[in-house]
């Protein structure tokens, strides 16, 4: 791998040893961000702020622009929030701050996290630092590009249907989506509340584990966070994987999977076997329905969550018309881009009178079957596996503009990540080499049992070692 710049460990060590100060490393990154402005990875950048000590003291990081940092603008990639100033800190942000990080700025993203290429940002698309004619993936494309181009040490992203893992795969970095309920969503601008999770995008598996140690845990401001004890996420990183049971779902290697991606993923599975894991073919029979379920559940929740953007209390407000209704109709027409409009409309339709049973209720039932597939694959009583592995995305990073006119084609790039969100499971994407034809990074996905990030990180760390 090319020079990846600082990891959390090297930044921490450098500051501790006096090789550079927190301020110096911050300024160095700010300079790099200026130099690589063309990537459009950042929407805003901050001045250096003094901070206390903590596990991450002085480590410069970036935050996806759908998370609130008190006193700073949070656009969520949308014109409707172009001038919106956050009144408080998101819990994940607050915890990073308490750990002593320096915030470099906020990263670009698909509008309201809706997209798989970061072409849907109202503030211009992000370029993939490895090939600027290609997309960085999305929706956390700005965060992934910033980490890949070493414009920060690490970044936070959010993942509703693959928005951390798919851009991490496209940019050749590590991205972890924690178990639903592991990290507080308080202060995350909501897209689909039963699916959204915040997670780290980093250069190494160990870094992802370190960030989880800071951001995970129960929060009184998010009732879906679980109160169970949070173990040290780094505890398994050095452990081997001898005898560990690895499941390979046959449904993840079907038609739409690109050959060079498939080759790299299969080679990585071989590495896991050589490291002592046992490989088992499994079946997740309802995988083919996951995307259809997702495109009912997610827009339904979107239509409810985005109802708050009405031009009354904050955000863009149209001055057209004479009555209150005109304010709503025009503010939303002027403020939202095409993809949020499309999804709000779809969700409104799915939830509208007479259609609820046929769409939303049906989808939640099939969602139960998708979860059951995973439960059975992981079931200890049925000789189940410890983790499930496969590709993160069916292709490497695609060209800008290639799929932007065809929503369904774009949606298909999340086909291996969406089932994981529907089942609430933790999953990581780590780079497993370059595609033989494109010479672009391929992402390897490792999916774990509910709240078993520990084993996911263990397998990821072993594969990372085997690959280098």
């Amino acid at each position, binding site marked *: 791998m090319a020079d990846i710049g600082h990891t959390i460990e090297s930044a921490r060590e450098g500051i501790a040893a006096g090789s550079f100060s927190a301020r110096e490393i911050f300024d160095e990154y700010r300079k790099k961000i200026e130099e690589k402005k063309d990537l459009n990875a950042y929407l805003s950048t901050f001045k250096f702020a003094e901070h206390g000590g903590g596990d991450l003291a002085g480590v410069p990081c970036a935050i996806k622009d759908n998370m609130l940092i008190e006193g700073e603008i949070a656009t969520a990639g949308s014109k409707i929030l172009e001038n919106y100033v956050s009144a408080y800190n998101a819990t994940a942000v607050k915890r990073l701050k308490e750990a002593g990080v320096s915030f470099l700025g906020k990263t670009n993203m698909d509008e309201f996290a809706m997209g798989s290429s970061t072409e849907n940002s109202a503030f211009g698309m992000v370029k993939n630092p490895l090939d600027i004619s290609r997309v960085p993936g999305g929706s956390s494309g700005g965060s992934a590009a910033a980490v890949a181009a070493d414009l920060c040490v690490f970044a936070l992203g959010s993942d509703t249907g693959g928005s951390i893992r798919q851009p991490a795969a496209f940019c050749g970095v590590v991205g972890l989506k924690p178990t*639903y309920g592991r990290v507080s969503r308080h202060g995350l601008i909501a897209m689909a509340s039963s699916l959204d999770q915040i997670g780290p995008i980093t250069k190494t598996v160990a870094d992802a584990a370190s960030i989880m140690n800071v951001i995970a845990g129960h929060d009184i401001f998010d009732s879906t966070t679980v109160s169970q004890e949070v173990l040290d996420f780094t505890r398994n990183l050095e452990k081997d994987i001898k005898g560990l049971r690895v499941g390979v779902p046959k449904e993840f290697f079907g038609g739409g999977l690109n050959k060079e991606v498939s080759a790299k993923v299969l080679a990585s599975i071989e590495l896991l076997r050589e490291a002592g894991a046992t490989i088992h073919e499994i079946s997740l029979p309802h995988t083919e329905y996951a995307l259809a379920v997702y495109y009912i559940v997610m827009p339904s929740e979107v239509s409810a969550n985005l109802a708050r953007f009405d031009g009354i209390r904050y955000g863009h407000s149209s001055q057209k018309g004479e009555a209150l209704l005109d304010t709503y109709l025009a503010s939303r027409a002027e403020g939202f881009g095409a993809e949020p409009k499309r999804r709000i409309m779809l969700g409104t339709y799915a939830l509208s009178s007479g259609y609820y049973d046929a769409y939303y209720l049906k989808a939640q039932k099939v969602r139960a079957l998708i979860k059951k597939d995973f439960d059975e694959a992981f079931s200890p009583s049925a000789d189940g596996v410890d983790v499930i592995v496969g590709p993160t995305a069916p292709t490497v990073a695609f060209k800008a503009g290639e799929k932007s006119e065809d929503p369904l084609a774009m949606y298909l790039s999340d086909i291996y990540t969406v089932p994981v969100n529907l089942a609430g499971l933790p999953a990581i994407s780590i780079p497993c080499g370059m595609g033989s034809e494109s010479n672009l990074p391929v992402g390897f996905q490792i999916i774990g049992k509910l709240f078993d990030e520990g084993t996911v990180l263990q397998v990821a760390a072993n594969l990372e070692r085997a690959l280098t």
Partner: protein
Amino acid sequence: MLSDKDVQHIATLARIKLTSQEEEKFKKDLSSILDYIETLKRVDTERVAPLYQITGLENALRPDEPRPSFTMDEKLDRLLIGQAPDVRGHFVKVKPVLRK
């Protein structure tokens, strides 16, 4: 296939004013997504209970004890109320609900 009337009805429910070009585009887009979603009809869900909470949480209760919320100061005032387009004192002014 959705009709023009369907699309207009959905847009009204969603409180988004669409241009005629958008109506055309969304009619096409939404219809093709809905066609794709039709595949769910193939799944037998006769005896399946719908899933609403993935980690099995039901109610997240806390003791019914008063706790401090936040105190309004000038800064919060500015951030919470001051971002409205039209403010009078502590109130947000909106256009008339009923048309004249």
